[in-house]
C-alpha cells in the first residue's frame, strides 16, 4: 500500500483550469447527482451549470459515458440519479446482515424517547443538555423503533416522537409501561448513590391516541425529507391522521 502513494501524482486532483463550459457542466452535474439524497430534476441541475449550456445535452453525454460503467446515470420518475448497474446487483447484494450498534448519543436519545414520549426534539435536547446531531434521529427512525407521532400544540408546532411496536418487539417488552422505574434502575445498579433528590422518571406511554396537546401529523410530514420516515411509520400512525 505504501508504494501506492508514490504511483499517484500529487497534482492529480488539482482543479483543471482549461475546461470549457460544457466539460465543467458535466462535472457539476456529476457531483450534484452523486451528492443528492434523491433524484434531481432538469431545472435543479440546470440552475447550477454555466449559462448557455443545455442541461439535456450534458445529461445525454453523461449517460453515454457511464453506460458501460458499474454506475449508470438513469432517469427515474422524470428525475435523474446515479444507480449501480443492474447486472452487478447479485454481486453487491450479499452484503446482507450488518451487525450494528447504536452510538451512545443514539442510545440516549432512544431512551429519552422511550421514557418521555411523546417528546419533541427540543425536549430531548433539554434533557440531554446537548444539541442532537442531525443524523441521530434519522438513524433511530431507520431502526424502525421510533416514529414521529404528531405535532405539539406550541409555537413552532414541533414534531413529537414516540416508540413503535417494533421497539417493544426488539427489546422484548410487552408495553412501554413495563420499562423499569427509578427504583428498579437503582436496584439494577444503573444509578449510583449520588443521584440528587428530585430526579423523577416519568411513567411512559406509547398510546397511539394523540394527547390533548398534540395535533396529527399532516400528510406532507410523512413525505418530507426531514423526517425520512415514511417506511418506518407503522400502520397505527397512519390511521392517526385520519382521525382529523
Amino acid at each position: 500500500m505504501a508504494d501506492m502513494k508514490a504511483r499517484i501524482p500529487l497534482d492529480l486532483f488539482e482543479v483543471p483550469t482549461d475546461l470549457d463550459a460544457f466539460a465543467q457542466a458535466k462535472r457539476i452535474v456529476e457531483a450534484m447527482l452523486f451528492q443528492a439524497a434523491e433524484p434531481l430534476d432538469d431545472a435543479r441541475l440546470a440552475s447550477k451549470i454555466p449559462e448557455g449550456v443545455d442541461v439535456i445535452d450534458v445529461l445525454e453525454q453523461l449517460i453515454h459515458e457511464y453506460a458501460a460503467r458499474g454506475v449508470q446515470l438513469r432517469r427515474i420518475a422524470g428525475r435523474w440519479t446515479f444507480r449501480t448497474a443492474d447486472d452487478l446487483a447479485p454481486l453487491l447484494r450479499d452484503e446482507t446482515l450488518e451487525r450494528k450498534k447504536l452510538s451512545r448519543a443514539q442510545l440516549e436519545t432512544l431512551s429519552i424517547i422511550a421514557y418521555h414520549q411523546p417528546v419533541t426534539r427540543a425536549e430531548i435536547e433539554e434533557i440531554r443538555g446537548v444539541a442532537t446531531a442531525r443524523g441521530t434521529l434519522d438513524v433511530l427512525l431507520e431502526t424502525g423503533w421510533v416514529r414521529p407521532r404528531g405535532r405539539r400544540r406550541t409555537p413552532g408546532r414541533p414534531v413529537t416522537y414516540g416508540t413503535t411496536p417494533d421497539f417493544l418487539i426488539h427489546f422484548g417488552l410487552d408495553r412501554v409501561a413495563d420499562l423499569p422505574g427509578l427504583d428498579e434502575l437503582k436496584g439494577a445498579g444503573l444509578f449510583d448513590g449520588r443521584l440528587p433528590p428530585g430526579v423523577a422518571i416519568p411513567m411512559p406511554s406509547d398510546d397511539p391516541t394523540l394527547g390533548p396537546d398534540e395535533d396529527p401529523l399532516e400528510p406532507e410530514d410523512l413525505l418530507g425529507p426531514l423526517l425520512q420516515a415514511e417506511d418506518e411509520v407503522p400502520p397505527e400512525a397512519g390511521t392517526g391522521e385520519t382521525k382529523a
Partner: protein
Amino acid sequence: MVVRRTPQGRPDDFFDERSESDPVLVVDVDGYEGPLDVLLVLARQQKVDLNKISILALAVQYLAFVEEARKIRLELAADYLLMAAWLAYLKSRLLLPEPTSDEEPSGVELAEALTARLQVLDAVRRAGQLLMARPRTGLDVFHRGNPEGIAATSTPVWLDTLNDVLAAYASQRQRHALARVTLAKRQVWSLADARAALQRLTGLAVDWTRLDSYLMTYAVPEDMRTSVMASSFASSLELAREGVMELRQDGAFQPIWVRARQAPADGGGNG
C-alpha cells in the same frame, strides 16, 4: 449552549463552551485564552519574527497588562498570575548579573525556553487554521448522498439490548442531574488547583524556579495568601513525592525553589 461574549471579546466567533457546571474557572480575560495567548498577542505587537522578540520587553508588557487587568477586575485566573510571577522573576534574572551558581539556568536560557513555547503554540494555531481550511466532508465535499439507493440488501441487525438503553438513560439522567449542581465560589486554593498550576508552571521552568515571593506578590489577593501558600507547599511536597518535581531550599527561611524533575540522575533532589 450559551453564547456569551466577553465584554471586549475578540471579533472571531468565540462562543463560550463552558457549561454552567464549571465552578470558577475564569479562563478568559477579555477574550484571551490564557497567559500564553496574551504573550503571543503582545509578541505580535513587536512585529518581528517570533525568534527575535524581546522577552524582556514582553515581560514588562505582560506585567503591565496584569496590573491593568487587576485594576478593572480582581478575579484573574491563577494561570495569569502565576505567569506574572514567573515573568517578574525572569525579568529580574535578565536585568541582574548572571549568578555564578551552575545550578540555575541563565535568564537567557529561560527566555529561550519561553520563546520556544510561544512558537509551539503559534504553530499549533496555524496548524489548526490549515486543518479548518481543508475541504471538509459534508460541508465542502460530499460522499454519496444516497448510498442506500440500491444497497438496501444489507439488513442491519441491531445488537443493542434493553440494558444498553436503560444504562444510557440512567447515565445521562444522572450526568445531567449532577451537572445541575451549582458550586459556590471557592475562597481557597484547593490542593488540586495548586497542583495543576504548579505543574503548568514547572512545564515552563526548565530549571530551578523560585516560587514563593513572586507568587505571593503577583498571584494572590491578600486574603488568600495563607491558603495559597499552604496549598502550594503541600502540593509541591506531593509532586516531589511522586517524582514529578524537585524542591530545594538552601537554608531555613530561604526561598523555596522548584523545578521539573530531571531525567534520572544520581543524587536526586536535595529537598
